[in-house]
């Protein structure tokens, strides 16, 4: 069962590498922000899977914090792009 | 009086959330949670509560909300996800016709919770994103929705496709009789 979760976590990390390509490449700032927002969610899900795989539940708290920070930073950066901060 | 009841209802929500996060009945944790949520409620109650303070604590309403989230919304979510998977895997992105369309909303939903819930449900189904919520001249809500593949340009039929089933279920939860200014 632990190997199952570990394989899942590795799949998510590979997907995160694909998103990093979009962040580096994206033609405009909005493209980069979309990819970064999804990268936060993917990181948080990979952390959940890794926590279940190695049995350390402290990583669940870190996943929650990553999700919260991703939400706040996306909202603030998009307001900044709009010129309203 | 209104401020105190707003503070109290926010305090209860914050304390429940703290208990769910900590998950222990240790008296020290309880005391610390009460202190922290009292401070958080004092700072944030004016952002959360605009109308009646105890609008949220209605067992029938919460039960209907749970049923909506588990069945109605989940079904729409899975259907929309399958459609999005078909679009992405087909690879013909030039055949899509994106557009921003104005769809009329249900006149029964006037409260802020209901409007926010309809808008968030539209945004959460892949393929549609709410861009703005406004009122028309009769006071009914209208939603400006960005749709990845506009299949129907008639506003009413498009609204039925985008949110018909979800909005009827939400009107059962947060809806009020037209013309009756309840709970404000």
């Amino acid at each position, binding site marked *: 069962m632990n190997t199952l979760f570990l394989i899942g976590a590795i*799949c998510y990390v590979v997907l995160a590498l694909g998103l990093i390509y979009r962040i580096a490449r994206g033609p405009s700032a909005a493209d980069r922000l*979309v990819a970064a927002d*999804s990268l936060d969610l993917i990181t948080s899900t990979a952390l959940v899977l890794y926590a279940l795989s190695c049995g350390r539940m402290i990583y*669940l708290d870190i996943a929650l914090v990553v*999700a919260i920070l991703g939400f706040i930073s996306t909202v603030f950066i998009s307001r900044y792009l709009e010129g309203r901060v | 009086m209104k401020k105190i009841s707003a503070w109290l209802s926010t305090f209860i929500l914050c304390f429940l959330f703290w208990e769910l996060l900590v998950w222990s009945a240790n008296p020290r944790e309880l005391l610390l949670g009460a202190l922290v949520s009292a401070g958080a409620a004092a700072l944030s109650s004016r952002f959360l509560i605009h109308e009646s303070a105890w609008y949220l604590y209605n067992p029938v309403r919460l039960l209907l909300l749970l049923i909506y989230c588990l069945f109605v919304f989940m079904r729409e979510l899975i259907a929309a996800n399958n459609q999005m998977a078909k679009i992405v895997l087909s690879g013909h992105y*030039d055949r899509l016709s994106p557009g*921003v369309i104005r769809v009329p909303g249900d006149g029964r939903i006037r409260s802020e919770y209901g409007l926010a819930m309809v808008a968030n449900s539209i945004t*959460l189904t892949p393929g549609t994103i709410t861009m703005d919520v406004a009122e028309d001249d009769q006071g009914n809500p209208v939603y*400006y929705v960005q749709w*990845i593949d506009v299949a129907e340009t008639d506003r009413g039929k498009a609204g039925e496709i985008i949110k018909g089933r979800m909005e009827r279920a939400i009107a059962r939860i947060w809806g009020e009789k037209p013309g009756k200014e309840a709970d404000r």
Partner: protein
Amino acid sequence: MMSTVMTAIIAVLLIIGAFFALIGTMGILRMPDVFGRMQASTCIATLSTICVNLAGILYVITAGLSAGTAVKLVILAVFVLVTNPISNHALCKAAYRIGCKPAEPFCVDDLAADFGEEAHTHNTADLPDSAFDVSGADASQQAEEGELQ
């Protein structure tokens, strides 16, 4: 017997979650414009997160871990489902207002038709890359003049 069935269910849920994460990533990588990418990224936030957290909850129940862990997974899924539409809405509106062009022009555009000039803003922080590119023209010019060497 019981644990084998549970393992199979967890594996199926994990595969569904990874499949929809793959769909979202492929959409972000291959879609031609910002708005299509935004729609595809919603797949990651909804069905992928729900399925993986559901698998985690089932695993915690079968393995007999503490109930606080399961509650934390529920909180994580609900939190992502509540906050993701807010950030997506802010992002979509910002991209529309600063004038990001779709790959093909919108077939219907009621926001511009109803609000006119107010639908777009000229006040943006999204400058083109040439505004930041100090290593391009100036440096090569200076290299030709031989001031740097």
